[in-house]
């Protein structure tokens, strides 16, 4: 395998940027954003260089490794701080640094009024570094460092405006729910070490085929738990909506394009485990299917533009997870959808940010309307992203999403039919709520507040949007042309036998388009034909109410985990105070008590002392009597 000395720069540059910006403090306020952007861009440059190097090599020689130093070595537990750049990670590296750099640029303008812009860029750089470590680590433990690193960055960025208590709570919630997922990752690593004896990708891949299915299933399920946490999948999805508390560029970068897709990366990276553990794989598919519907349903009821997009993200990642769960045929499509989604969803989020920028940070879509005329560029870029997510040919989503739907149908048997139907349904609902977003935001009559003065955003903001829009249009076509991505990734995955085709690709595309058309039509009828209330109506169906509350996910967590947890905590606090420490104090009281009882004997009366002496003498005699 090829080694390289330059991989570390991918991570080191943004990490250096973050360190400088954090340590320099206010002194760096003037140039901090520039340094941050530069670091991100240089990392992108290194990534491009690596890609060019990789392209120049043959398929087998493409993966590159770099051993930095010996990290942890105890007994047989040996983990190096080592990096691995292969065909899979390079996709992510370019996505992270590429989209990341665009969002850095966007943020220069978006955050220009913020007092703490420097700190924001420091966090962004920290995130880029951690995310790169996540995708570049050559073992699960290295990945784990990046995994929690992005969690930290996400925590910091969601809570960037943490002077608002709700935002601070949102960041905490995200961190804690992510930690639950991280626990799954630690379990997976522990099981891997206990059963296989190594935690590196290479080592596990080597031993996977002669490891028991039970162990692999356990590892797989735990990896899935990790993925659900990070990628906001069912049942650890609740944090994503609240995470929209962060500045919009953060939502675009972390909670749409990159970090939340880490779960897909993890499952794809662990293909050797899942391929050998069908039960775990089935669970992956189930989780993906549930989440894709779950997210889509939430999306239909949200009035907050960012939360609607977040729900959409959840749903789209459900597609990816589902794709990844379909095994070797699905991995490449999952990654392809991940990349195209990275473009169009980031673009839409930035568009949403642009709208908010022009609307005094208003996020309620019911107070938008008719913005098309005031923000033409935003409308166009957002619209292109909209077409992409709908899967309208020839936009990016068409290629990637249809492939997943097709693969789902072809996965065989009843499972295939169910999954196919679910994905189709998801596509229809997606069409509905995205059309709703478009209509509410850009068309119809204006429902603004009096003080709103919508205007187009400056070039630093719309340029990244435009670039991403180009990606939304073209990336699907480019990646699937001649199965480019599938072939690129093929060496990493086990080869698979051809499945029987349940439905021909053209039929699937037809069905999908039909579903999309229905979704769009329903949305039109509901929102374009009639007046939209500026205040969300209250007399709505039970279903809408539940969907507005994110399908009761928070109430569920609160009732099942939080309340009992709080009760347990306060019960334990009382126990500690009264039972355990009470026992300790009881011993002290016993000593004091017996002391005060015995003190009564010391009455001061000579005769009672004499009586005591008499008793003592009697006891002494008794003792002698017993002894001799």
């Amino acid at each position, binding site marked *: 395998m090829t080694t390289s000395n330059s991989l570390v720069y991918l991570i080191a540059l943004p990490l250096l940027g973050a360190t400088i910006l*954090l340590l320099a*403090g206010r002194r760096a306020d003037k140039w901090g954003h520039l340094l941050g952007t530069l670091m991100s861009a240089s990392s992108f440059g290194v990534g491009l260089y690596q890609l060019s190097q990789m392209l120049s090599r043959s398929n087998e020689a493409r993966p590159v490794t770099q051993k930095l*130093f*010996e*990290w*942890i*070595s*105890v*007994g*047989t*537990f040996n983990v190096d*701080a080592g990096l691995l750049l292969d065909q899979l990670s390079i996709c992510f590296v370019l996505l992270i640094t590429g989209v990341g750099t665009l969002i850095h640029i966007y943020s220069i303008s978006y955050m220009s009024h913020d007092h703490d812009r420097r700190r924001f860029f420091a966090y962004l750089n920290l995130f880029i570094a951690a995310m790169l470590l996540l995708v570049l680590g050559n073992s699960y*433990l290295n990945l*784990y*460092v990046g*995994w*929690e*690193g992005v969690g*930290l960055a996400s925590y910091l960025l969601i*809570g960037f405006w*943490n*002077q*608002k*208590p709700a935002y*601070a*709570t949102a960041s*905490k919630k995200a*961190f*804690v729910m992510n*930690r639950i997922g*991280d*626990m799954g990752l*630690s*379990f997976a*690593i*522990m*099981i891997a*070490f*206990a*059963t*296989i*004896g190594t935690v590196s990708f290479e080592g596990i891949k080597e*031993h996977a085929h*002669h*490891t*028991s*299915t*039970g*162990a692999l299933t356990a590892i797989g399920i735990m990896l899935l738990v990790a993925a659900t946490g990070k990628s906001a999948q069912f049942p650890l999805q609740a944090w994503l909506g609240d995470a929209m508390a962060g500045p919009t560029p953060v939502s675009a970068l972390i909670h749409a394009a990159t970090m939340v897709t880490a779960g897909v990366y993890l499952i794809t990276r662990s293909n050797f485990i899942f391929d050998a553990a069908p039960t775990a794989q089935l669970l992956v598919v189930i989780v993906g299917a549930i989440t894709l519907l779950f997210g889509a349903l939430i999306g239909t009821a949200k009035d907050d533009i960012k939360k609607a997009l977040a729900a959409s993200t959840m749903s789209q990642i459900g597609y990816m997870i589902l794709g990844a769960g379909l095994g070797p045929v699905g991995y490449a499509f999952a990654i392809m959808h991940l990349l195209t989604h990275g473009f169009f969803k980031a673009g839409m989020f930035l568009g949403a940010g642009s709208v908010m920028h022009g609307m005094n940070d208003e996020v309620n879509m019911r107070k938008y309307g008719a913005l098309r005329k005031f923000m033409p560029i935003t409308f166009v870029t957002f619209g292109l992203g909209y077409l992409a997510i709908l899967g309208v040919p020839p936009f990016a989503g068409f290629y990637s999403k249809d492939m997943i739907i097709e693969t789902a149908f072809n996965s065989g048997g009843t499972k295939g039919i169910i999954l196919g139907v679910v994905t189709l349904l998801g596509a229809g609902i997606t069409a509905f709520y995205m059309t709703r977003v478009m209509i509410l935001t850009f068309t119809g009559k204006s429902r603004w507040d009096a003080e709103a003065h919508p205007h187009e955003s400056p070039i630093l903001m719309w340029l990244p949007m435009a670039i991403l829009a180009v990606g939304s249009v073209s990336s699907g076509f480019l990646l699937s042309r001649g199965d480019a991505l599938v072939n690129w990734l093929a060496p990493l995955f086990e080869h698979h036998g051809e499945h029987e085709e349940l439905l021909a690709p053209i039929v699937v595309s037809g069905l999908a388009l039909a579903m999309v058309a229905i979704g769009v039509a329903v949305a039109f009828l509901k929102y374009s034909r009639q007046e939209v209330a500026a205040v969300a109506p209250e007399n709505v169906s039970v279903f809408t109410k539940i969907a507005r509350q994110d399908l009761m996910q928070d109430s569920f967590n609160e009732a099942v985990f939080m309340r009992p947890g709080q009760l*347990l*905590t*306060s019960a*334990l*606090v009382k126990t*500690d105070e009264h039972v*355990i*420490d009470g*026992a*300790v104090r009881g011993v*002290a009281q016993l000593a004091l008590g017996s002391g005060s009882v015995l003190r009564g004997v010391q009455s001061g009366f000579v005769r009672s002392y004499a009586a005591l002496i008499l008793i003592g003498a009697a006891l002494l005699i008794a003792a002698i009597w017993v002894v001799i």
Partner: protein
Amino acid sequence: MLNSLTLLMALPIIGSIVVALLPKTKETLAKQVALITTLIVAGATIAMAVNFQRDNVDLQFVEKYSWIPTFGINFAVGIDGLALVLILMSTVLAPIVVLAGWNEAHGGRWSVKVFYILILVLETMMIGVFAATDVFLFYVIFEAMLIPVYFLIGGYGTGQRSAAAVKFLIYSLFGGLLMLASIIGLYVMSGAQGGHTFDLQALSQLEMSSTTQNFLFLGFFIAFAIKAPLWPLHTWLPDAADSATPGTSVLLLGVLDKVGTFGMIRYCLTLFPDASKTFTPMILVLSVISIVYGAFLAIGQRDLKRLIAFTSISHFGFITMGIFAMTSQGQSGATLYMFNHGFSTAALFLVGGWMISRRGSSTIADFGGLQRVTPVMAWSFFLAGMSSLALPGMSSFVSEFLVLVGTFTRYPVHAVIATFGIVLAALYILIPVQKALHGPTTAGNENLSDLNLREKIAIAPVIAIIIALGFYPSPLLKVINPASAHVIAQMGFTDPAPTNGDK
């Protein structure tokens, strides 16, 4: 520098004599002398660490002087990797504590000078307790350490300081006396088997019936479990930490409590291998309870100092679990954990202490929005907290993960339950972080001053060590590994082989 442990122990005593000779009014001079002394000691220890032969599992820097020949008691010292790491931690923490707590001694019951005399005497004992290879010498120092700490809590603490000091003292004395009984038992046993001795090496060769071993083991173990502190013998710790000054708390939790876990390895495992095996299931259960219980209690605390104390109970659970998992990962992880916990708790207590002294309250709810007012202090606290919740990239992650992995290979159920502690850790750190640092700046916090240069100098090395060791723990692991492998081998254990290596 001479590589002599005796000299190392003598240095702080000399410093304390110098401080004692100073006039009472020269407070700053006393502080400076104390700081310089501790710095010299730290330097000397680092020099010793450099000269330490890493691959040699025997005791090094051995010295032995006859002390009480009638009973065969020697002043015998020597260190292996385990002791070296702990001495290093103690002596590096000492100057940090002195510098960080520059004004801690004011407002105490006695003069400033007495405070530093106590600190310096305590430092000598901290070195001695880890270096002693004579069981009697160890016992004497083990108990004598209580005296300066008692006065540090009772004389310079806050709140219910006398009550807390007495509770601490009696609790520890109780354990110490149980240990004394066991030590006498060992001495008597040694007399029956070739001459009375207190030498650790000789005592570890004793032949004992399993009943005897179990009883003697318990005497030692309970003493150490109180010190460590292990559930349910922990209740002295929150009270003591609540009342002590931050610097004292750092020494108490960071160093003194480590004597408990150190003792478990050095005395319980070495002297009573069979009894250790007998009691392992019970101890592991207690450790797991400590981890989860300490975490829950920390979540439920309203007082910052008590919260930190309870997080330590949780962490000590991890250390004990690692020790008794009997795998090289667990053992090394536990030792590394001891070192790392010293620094992460130091960071928490010192920054927490500054916050409390500025705000004049230790109730978490009294703080709010500090990040806007005092960014450096808030960041320091945040990083300390991240270290406490074992964020990867922080030193405590390496040790915690090693403990978990090491335990998992032999006791998966315990490890799985303990892992839930990491979620609870996120809660018990993030809740105070949110309440104290985030949110709007609440009344009473608007005019707090950020860390000054002295405080920055004190906290910087701690955070630097935490982060540096998170990414590069190898230097320490290389010192620890031979020692822990030696212990595991002595116990007759080998690491479990991968179980499902073959289909």
